[in-house]
């Protein structure tokens, strides 16, 4: 990895965002909607379950932003005709995607905070955190794990112009399988195994353990196990994404098919 390339991609993504920040709106709407629906369904807005709903909504906010911003950034290169120069530069495509994903993760954090804020101001949920330091740490870890899934999905965008369809299909499964709003214990057992293989599932569990008093872990794990699993799976997903991006990059350079329409 080349840190300079990662930093440059981070800065480039920041400039893109600042010049046209309105695109944060679509990615924040669906998590806000889901949280609002859950809070409307709970008629009594007190107690730990409501806190879980708000925290889950925050995680969904991070995911929506990470998914769309990170993976679509390659699509915009395709539209703008900058994908070819990007592939011809000596930097690895993984560095560029990772730099962009880091910026998007940072903005994703603001999405989460917005969900907390709206829940507080509109629904008066009175959220209080059990361990604020651990909460923040686990939230950041979860965010990184979501960013890595965004990087993995970006392989589809490098490979094909149809990547956007793949990304839109990935939005809801993570909402369901990560256990952010609904515990994975109520899912069919086959789906629960898929949930265990996703790093955000462990991250969400850790966030809730750090924030909600009396919360029972979805996997029966304690905080350390959750954190270890998030880190392990995040690294694993990153290595898979890096391997795939390298293979795809080499293949499209050989076949000259990067911007074929």
């Amino acid at each position: 990895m080349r840190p300079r390339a990662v930093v440059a991609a981070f800065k480039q993504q920041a400039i893109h965002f600042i010049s046209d920040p309105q695109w944060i709106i679509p990615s924040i709407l669906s998590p806000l909607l889901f949280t609002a629906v859950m809070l409307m369904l709970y008629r009594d807005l007190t107690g730990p379950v409501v806190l879980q709903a708000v925290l889950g909504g925050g995680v969904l906010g991070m995911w929506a932003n990470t998914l769309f911003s990170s993976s679509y950034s390659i699509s915009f290169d395709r539209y703008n005709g900058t994908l070819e120069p990007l592939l011809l530069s000596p930097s690895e495509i993984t560095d560029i995607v990772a730099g962009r994903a880091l910026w998007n993760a940072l903005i994703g954090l603001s999405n989460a905070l917005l969900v907390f804020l709206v829940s507080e101001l509109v629904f008066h949920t009175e959220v209080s955190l059990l361990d604020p330091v651990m909460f923040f740490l686990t939230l950041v870890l979860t965010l990184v794990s979501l960013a890595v899934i965004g990087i993995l999905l970006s392989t589809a965008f490098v490979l094909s112009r149809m990547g956007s369809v793949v990304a839109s299909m990935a939005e809801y499964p993570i909402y369901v399988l990560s256990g952010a709003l609904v515990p994975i214990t109520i899912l069919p057992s086959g789906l629960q195994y898929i949930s265990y293989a996703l790093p955000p599932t462990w991250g969400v569990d850790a966030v809730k353990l750090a924030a909600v008093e009396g919360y029972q872990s979805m996997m029966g794990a304690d905080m350390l196990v959750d954190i270890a699993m998030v880190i392990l799976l995040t690294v694993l997903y990153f290595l898979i994404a890096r391997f795939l991006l390298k293979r795809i990059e080499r293949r499209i350079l050989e076949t000259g098919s990067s911007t074929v329409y």
Partner: protein
Amino acid sequence: MRSSYSLQVLSSSFRNSVVTKFTVTPVWLWLLNMMVVSFFTMFFFAALADYVSNPDVSVEYVVIGNAVQSVAVTTVYSVATVPGIQKHVGTLSSVASTPASLFTVFLGMGIINIIGGFAAAAVSMTYASLLFGVSFASGNILSVASVMVLACLSLTGVGMMIGSIGLYLRTSEIIASVVAYIGLLLCGVNFPVSYLPEWLQVLAYCNPMTYAVEATRGAVAGAALADLWEPLAAMMSLGVLFFAVSWFAFRLFERLAARRGTMESF
């Protein structure tokens, strides 16, 4: 003479949009996307309703609501973003310089999304019946199908109205997202409209989707079309109103964009 010209424009715009859409995304992937998104949306809210166990909101209640919601996303959102996409790919000025009315051109381009809305309705109702245990045994299938078709047409009016703004602004996608998502919160898809504060209930009853959801629930419960005339009349009236407003809005924003040179501005 003029109506035959409009039909020609409608037809060629439709053909153009079909070719464009399926050149980039094959039909099988488009259908797969619709099936996956419909399933997980329905599954997510069904699981939520099951977990929350609110006595007013059964899983069946949420599943039927989300079947109608899949129609709304396909029609309102997809139709609304058509002018913005033309602007993004740089073909809006060329389209605007033809003698055809932009309203007719974009309506023609939106027909594929109306068909998509019918397909989404069929897929969602199949899921509702086969996977989520919604019983259609006492339901009136003809009424359900008719309500879905009328809902697609009415909601297209909403999409066209939002889409017209895309001529003037940088994009209509942001406004389309806001209207589509906030609209879904206000129309009784996942919880009764009565849960909303009174001032929001007024907005809910200005949304054709509210009546579409009400009529669909009635049809699944066995009501004939004649019994559903009240929500259907309200939904169709709003649909016609939104179409009329969108016709004027297209003319207004087309003129404004041409005068201020914002047709291709980003």
